[in-house]
């Protein structure tokens, strides 16, 4: 019996190649797309869960409230680690620094640049699951100036030599002994490292007393806790306030209220709005949306299947009628048809697998994800693929099976009935459904790209184009003036400045008070250590007052330049602010000498932040060299800068960034999302059109005789084309009407994420509708035109 079914199935498949092809390929693409998106979401959801104890690991989050504004720190003072281990026996704590920017490493006479060295407590390998290839996990990070290398770094630096016990020099200054080699951290780890140095090196590096390891007033390091098995996290959470009062030695007058939170490790990847958090962020909301879209794409593909199978029912009806006459009952027919569809979809699944393998690299580059092609290692993935297949079999084939098997044999045997393509209400609604989703996705994609471009082209208050900045180097810091003079000899290097940070890069916060301030405590402001040239490098515009000046001795330590937002928050207009005295919480005191127009230091998701700039007489905090160069012949200018760099700082590799590019990287996640949506909407429209193509082909074939008769009666070719195409295009238009308002509301909501957002213009809807309609028109009319231009005698002869 099964052989009999199989034979009919295969022969049917081969006899109707176009329909089978459309069905199989459409489903394959749908399943592949669905799978890719699930892979992406799974990867996102799996973040940090490779840690064996991830559900017992928490990060301490420190929240300050002052004057109604809240600073949420992912960093904590160093002292909390000990506080937690003392007060809660069995709890393990590990402190981590965040990568402090590029560091140069010297081994023998070879130089290597790294993305950063992370300081970590010796408990690091006990708390987290990062296996050591060499070295003792309990002791590798115990002694000061020990360092553990990632496998790939060890290979890069040492090649085949055993690195254990070797000495490498960091920053041309500190000698570290290699005590271990760790496996590279997995991609789905929030904590990424290539070098881990022992936390106990901290006093040595900063030439600071050991108390730096146990302070409570400077939020500089991540603190992670590993709770013992069976420990109630709530019991710690409840005693957090008392822990604070117990250990906090003094109120540094900076904040009104402090609160500690314990954040589960599995939430770290998804947390937003924490200061100095890890860079690689996911968004659960987007993950859910994407999963939804994946399902919708799958549904679109299933709808094709349903539509094409039922549209073709006339061809199939005869066989079904005969089988019924020969004694098959309905449930047997349903089984037969289901099995046939299951085979078809299995073929799709196989092709889908191949498609995933083929397109994963492209998908990875479009979404900046790092999904592995080798997902046979991933049992969950295989399982979900099987689940998707079963889902497809159930959704796509159950309706056609029941529909087809319901035919009354008497009716079907009499001859093909007229229940053809595009005519039943059910089929029409399904087409509308498909194109509504496609149009929705197209609209969403356009809005996302527009917003992305809007963000990138929005005025930021500073000019980051042709501003390049160089990495930190001890030699350059020492010989900065000479270096600067050499650079400025070139007319194409317009200005050179030193600064603590630049817009989009890490920043610092400090508290300020001033005479006449209501409430005794200080307010926090973003602070920037700058020099008198930064304003011209960034092309900041002065609203009132003046810039710092090298010739005014008081400017070095007793003056501030603020931005308008800061002035506003202090309660002054720009001119009013000039001359007021500010006191910083670190004891600096000075007059406001200038107010600049607002400029964005964070991505445009955020409003302009208030900024206080000061000069730093010790030079210690201004480590970035930034310069504005002319747009002409940039390569030659770069060559010159490089030659000067190598002259002044031979031990540090030359590495530069353009400010506008690095600021643009703040929108990586928006870019990634737009990429995903582009892929999704493209796929959905392609699959939907595939189905439309099949239906149009069928409708054309079915109505060939009618078209012939109409032509003989004098219908023009456009009239005949309209006969077929008109039906379908009306449906696409209806779909657009449904999709537009949905897309509008969805995008309004999405845009709330941005402080700066574009207005959703009418043009977006017109364009998205036009795209859907145009693609549908092309698909349908190709069929209709062929039939319409054929000689009517041809079609009538065969009756």
């Amino acid at each position, binding site marked *: *019996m099964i052989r009999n079914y199989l034979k009919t199935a295969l*022969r049917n498949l081969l006899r109707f190649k176009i329909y089978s092809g459309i069905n199989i390929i459409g489903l394959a693409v749908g399943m592949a797309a669905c799978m890719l998106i699930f892979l992406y979401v799974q990867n996102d959801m799996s973040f940090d869960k490779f840690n064996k104890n991830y559900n017992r690991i928490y990060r301490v989050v420190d929240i300050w409230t002052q004057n109604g504004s809240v600073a949420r720190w992912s960093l904590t003072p160093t002292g909390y680690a000990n506080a937690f281990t003392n007060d809660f026996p069995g709890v393990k704590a590990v402190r981590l620094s965040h990568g402090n920017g590029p560091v140069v490493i010297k081994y023998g006479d070879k130089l290597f640049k790294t993305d950063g060295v992370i300081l970590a407590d010796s408990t690091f390998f006990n708390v987290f699951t990062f296996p050591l290839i060499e070295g003792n996990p309990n002791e590798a990070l115990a002694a000061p100036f020990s360092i553990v290398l990632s496998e790939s770094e060890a290979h890069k630096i040492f090649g085949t030599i055993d690195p254990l016990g070797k000495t490498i020099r960091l920053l041309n200054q500190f000698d570290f002994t290699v005590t271990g080699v760790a496996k590279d951290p997995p991609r789905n780890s929030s904590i990424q490292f290539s070098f881990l140095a022992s936390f106990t090196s901290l006093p040595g590096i900063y030439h600071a007393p050991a108390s730096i390891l146990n302070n409570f007033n400077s939020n500089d390091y991540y603190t992670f806790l590993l709770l013992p098995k069976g420990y109630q996290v709530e019991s710690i959470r409840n005693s957090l306030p008392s822990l604070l009062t117990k250990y906090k030695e003094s109120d540094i007058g900076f904040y009104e209220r402090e609160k500690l939170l314990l954040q589960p490790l599995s939430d770290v990847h998804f947390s937003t709005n924490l200061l100095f958090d890890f860079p690689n962020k996911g968004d659960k909301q987007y993950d859910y949306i994407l999963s939804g879209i994946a399902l919708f794409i799958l549904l679109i593909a299933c709808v094709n299947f349903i539509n094409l199978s039922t549209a073709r029912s006339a061809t199939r009806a005869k066989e079904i009628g005969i*089988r019924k006459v020969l004694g098959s*009952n309905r449930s047997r027919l349903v089984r037969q048809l289901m099995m046939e569809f299951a085979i078809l979809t299995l073929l799709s699944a196989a092709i889908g697998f191949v498609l995933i393998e083929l397109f994963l690299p492209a998908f990875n580059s479009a979404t900046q994800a790092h999904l592995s092609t080798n997902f046979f290692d991933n049992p969950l993935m295989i399982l979900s693929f099987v689940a998707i297949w079963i889902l497809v079999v159930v959704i796509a084939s159950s309706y056609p099976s029941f529909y087809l098997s319901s035919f*009354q044999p008497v009716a079907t045997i009499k001859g093909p009935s007229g229940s053809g393509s595009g005519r039943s209400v059910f089929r029409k609604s399904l087409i509308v459904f498909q194109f509504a989703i496609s149009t929705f996705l197209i609209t969403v994609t356009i809005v996302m790209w527009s917003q992305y471009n809007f963000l990138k082209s929005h005025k930021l208050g500073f000019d980051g184009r042709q501003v390049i900045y160089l990495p930190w180097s001890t030699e350059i810091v020492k010989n900065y003036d000479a270096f600067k003079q050499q650079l400025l000899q070139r007319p194409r290097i317009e200005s050179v400045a030193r600064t603590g940070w630049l817009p989009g890069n890490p920043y610092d916060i400090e508290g300020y008070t001033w005479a006449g301030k209501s409430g005794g405590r200080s307010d926090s402001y973003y602070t920037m250590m700058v020099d008198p040239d930064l304003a011209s490098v960034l092309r900041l515009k002065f609203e009132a007052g003046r810039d710092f000046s090298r010739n005014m001795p008081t400017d070095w330590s007793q003056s501030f330049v603020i931005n308008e937002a800061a002035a506003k928050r202090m309660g002054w207009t720009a001119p009013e602010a000039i001359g007021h005295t500010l006191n910083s919480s670190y004891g600096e005191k000075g007059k406001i000498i200038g107010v600049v127009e607002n400029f964005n230091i964070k991505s445009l998701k955020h409003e302009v932040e208030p900024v206080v700039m000061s000069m730093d007489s010790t030079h210690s905090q201004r480590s970035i060299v930034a310069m504005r160069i002319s747009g002409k012949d940039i390569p030659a200018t770069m060559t010159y800068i490089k030659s000067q760099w190598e002259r002044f700082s031979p031990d540090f590799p030359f590495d530069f960034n353009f400010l506008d590019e690095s600021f643009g990287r703040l929108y990586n996640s928006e870019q990634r999302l737009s990429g995903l949506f582009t892929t999704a909407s493209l796929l959905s429209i392609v699959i939907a059109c595939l189905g439309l193509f099949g239906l149009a082909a069928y409708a054309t074939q079915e109505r060939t005789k009618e078209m012939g008769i109409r032509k003989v009666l004098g219908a023009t070719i456009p009239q005949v084309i309209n006969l077929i195409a008109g039906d379908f295009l009306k449906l696409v238009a209806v779909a657009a009407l449904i999709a537009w308002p949905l897309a509008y509301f969805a995008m309004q909501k999405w845009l709330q994420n941005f402080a700066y957002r574009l207005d959703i213009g009418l043009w977006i809807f017109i364009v998205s509708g036009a795209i859907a309609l145009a693609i549908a028109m092309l698909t349908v009319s190709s069929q209709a035109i062929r039939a319409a231009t054929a000689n009517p005698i041809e079609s009538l002869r065969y009756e």
Partner: protein
Amino acid sequence: MIKLTAIEKYYENRVIKTFVLRNINLEVKEGEFVSVMGPSGSGKTTLLNIIGMLDAPSNGEYYFLDEPVHKMSEKRLTELHKTYIGFVFQSYHLIDELTVYENLETPLLYQRVNSNNRKGRVAETLDRFGMVAKKDLFPNQLSGGQQQLVAIARAVIAEPKLILADEPTGNLHSEQGKEIMDLLKKLNEQGTTIIQVTHSETNAAYGNRIIRLKDGWIEK
């Protein structure tokens, strides 16, 4: 074997009832060869479909082997018709995707005949109808007469008590038609009850009784 009492069949829409069959009273005994005749639209095919349980009457009673068909469940009907009734159609209605052999095999599959038994019966039937050489051909590779031969073979392979033939020779030229009619006659002589619908007096004469229908009534 078959007893129809006051069978009526009509189609209804909001305005009118269109009668296809009216007050049909008919009895067919085992071993009979009945020809149903009448002009187009007189209800011949509908009558045949009702007898074959492919269609249900609007009113009236139908006993098949003394069982009340009009009261039966769908399942029992399928059971009954697949065990006792074979069909032959004017346009053959073979399954295009299956070969001659597989077409013959299909009714046996639905009756859950086991594999060895099935093979034997198909081989025997192929032999009996002289189609052994053609067993691997598809229907569209056969002539009309040959296709009808396959269709009859398929109808008899399950050894039905009753064969219903709806204009079995309608699409055939006279030479082939005669062969088919001879075959039916032979089957009847071997004991199979046959009811055929036909336009041709010649073919009707093969039967031992003629029922004439006109506008849904049996002409007396």
